[in-house]
């Protein structure tokens, strides 16, 4: 069977922020397999913000909401300010998310790679 999402992300530079190594590498692999260039994964807010500073080209981002008890929102705000689209990949239901981010596309863990790719295309 051919994955209809294969190569869907060719040439895209995508930032991943996720503090669980196993989940982060899974996400990175899924995106790379479809042609993306992955920035990160970053495992903390601080790490993510410094990656944002170091990379001119970022076409999109995949963000976990809870990073060792810290919330991702400063990173989301920085991405918004740069006009970079992003999606949340999270274990939280919608009511756990503040209104300001209610419109952000959200995938629940565990994530299906094709669903993620469709959101990032």
């Amino acid at each position, binding site marked *: 069977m051919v994955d209809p999402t294969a190569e869907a992300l060719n040439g895209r530079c995508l930032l991943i922020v996720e*503090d*669980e*190594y*196993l*989940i*982060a*590498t*899974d996400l990175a692999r899924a995106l790379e397999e479809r042609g993306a260039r992955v920035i990160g*994964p970053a*495992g903390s807010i601080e790490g993510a913000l410094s990656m944002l500073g170091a990379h001119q080209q970022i076409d999109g981002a995949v963000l976990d909401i*809870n990073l*060792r*008890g810290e919330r991702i929102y400063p990173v989301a705000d920085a991405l918004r300010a740069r006009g970079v689209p992003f999606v949340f990949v*999270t*274990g*939280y*239901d919608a*009511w*756990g998310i503040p209104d300001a981010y209610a419109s952000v596309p959200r995938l*629940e*863990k*565990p*994530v299906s790679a094709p669903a993620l790719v469709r959101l990032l295309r």
Partner: protein
Amino acid sequence: MQDRSSDSLVPTDQELLRLIVESAIDFAIFTMDPNGITTSWNPGAQRLLGYRNGEIIGSSVDVIFPPEEGGSAAAAEERRTALAQGRAEDERWQMRKDGARFWASGLLMPLADQNAGFVKILRDRTSQHRAEEQLRESEERFRVLATNIPQLVFRTKPNGERTWPSPQWSSFTGLDFAASLDLGWLEAIHPDDRDATQAAWQDAQRNGEYYVEHRVRPAGSDEYLWHQTRALPLTHGAKSGDADWVGTMTDIHELKTLEARQQVLLAEVQHRTRNLLAIVQSIARQTIKSSRSVDEFAEEYESRLGALSRIQSLLARTDSDPIDLRELVAGELEAHGHASPQASSKVKIEGSSVLLPSSSAQLLALAIHELATNAVKYGALGQRSGQLVVRWGVDKDSAKPMAAVEWRETGVAMPEGGRKRRGYGSELIERALPFQLGAKTKLEFRPDGLCCEILVPVTSKERRDG
């Protein structure tokens, strides 16, 4: 100008007065001489008091004062007052001929010629009096109830303007009676809740019931407490659109706080569960990649899920408390058939109790599991001469205390050609632990066995379960 007395169609003043007195049957109107002897008696008096003209005229009218009201002495006292003040008004029980009492509103006035005596006008107000007494009683019952229940009671107009705040309200909020009237009470409501509090009065008109949850500030405090406020109109039905409403405010702060805490906990459980599922998924993918057969996959996958499940039970037992490194290591070795130093001469665990943040425990457990599995398959736990020592020490004085853990296998015949198995375990130790826990790690395949060093942050937090 006509002579009025000669016009038979127009009554004289005398005649007019007689007509009024005769027809005013709701009023007892009678006259008496200075000593209380009846001199005239109208039909209203006969109806109200039961005596006919002939029975009472010429006798003392004091018989209408029942003994418990003071009898004739009270009647004489009333005449003295009327003489002194020009009139004597009273409300009191009076007595009919048949002995029945009725509540009367009375007026006694001296006639213009004081020697002629007095005129008395009496009206039966028994039913009004009973109604007033019932109202007083029910208001007293309300007051006793309203001032003794723990809720804050109030009376209000349908638009939320208060007409009566209970003393409990005043002592709770520090707003006295006058300050709470009209919309003054809103001062004690959290500014963010005032709009909703007022808007609820509009809903109340439609629903016939007022309901709102809002924060109320106790006197001398900045910490608002959640209250549930309900109110109902005093009279049911549509006709009384401006009837008073009565309401209560109940402290629901603890309930609200618990509710909020429950939401946080639920969100946390969601987060952990879904993360765990994602990790299970990731382990499956990795295991598939390195397996050459379904049997091999099944064995490895089950064994890894076993490790994941063991650390979950450890985590579940202590909630968010730290995990003891010793329990973690001993648990993994036990799962591989090496329970304790006594039971296994091949294994030594050396290290005092060291606490790991619960957030670190899961990944570290998976890494230790890989080391143990590897040792059983290719290393010290699978070879007769092999020995394993797991030891650690902590520099507790450091601002960020770290445990230096050493996993040292000896007496192992390493595979020919220095074959190095760089599999899942290596990835966990060399990449995952540094990424996720900020650990420093080193993995060496020495000639006599594997040596792994892990420098991992530990917690200075004490365990709550002791």
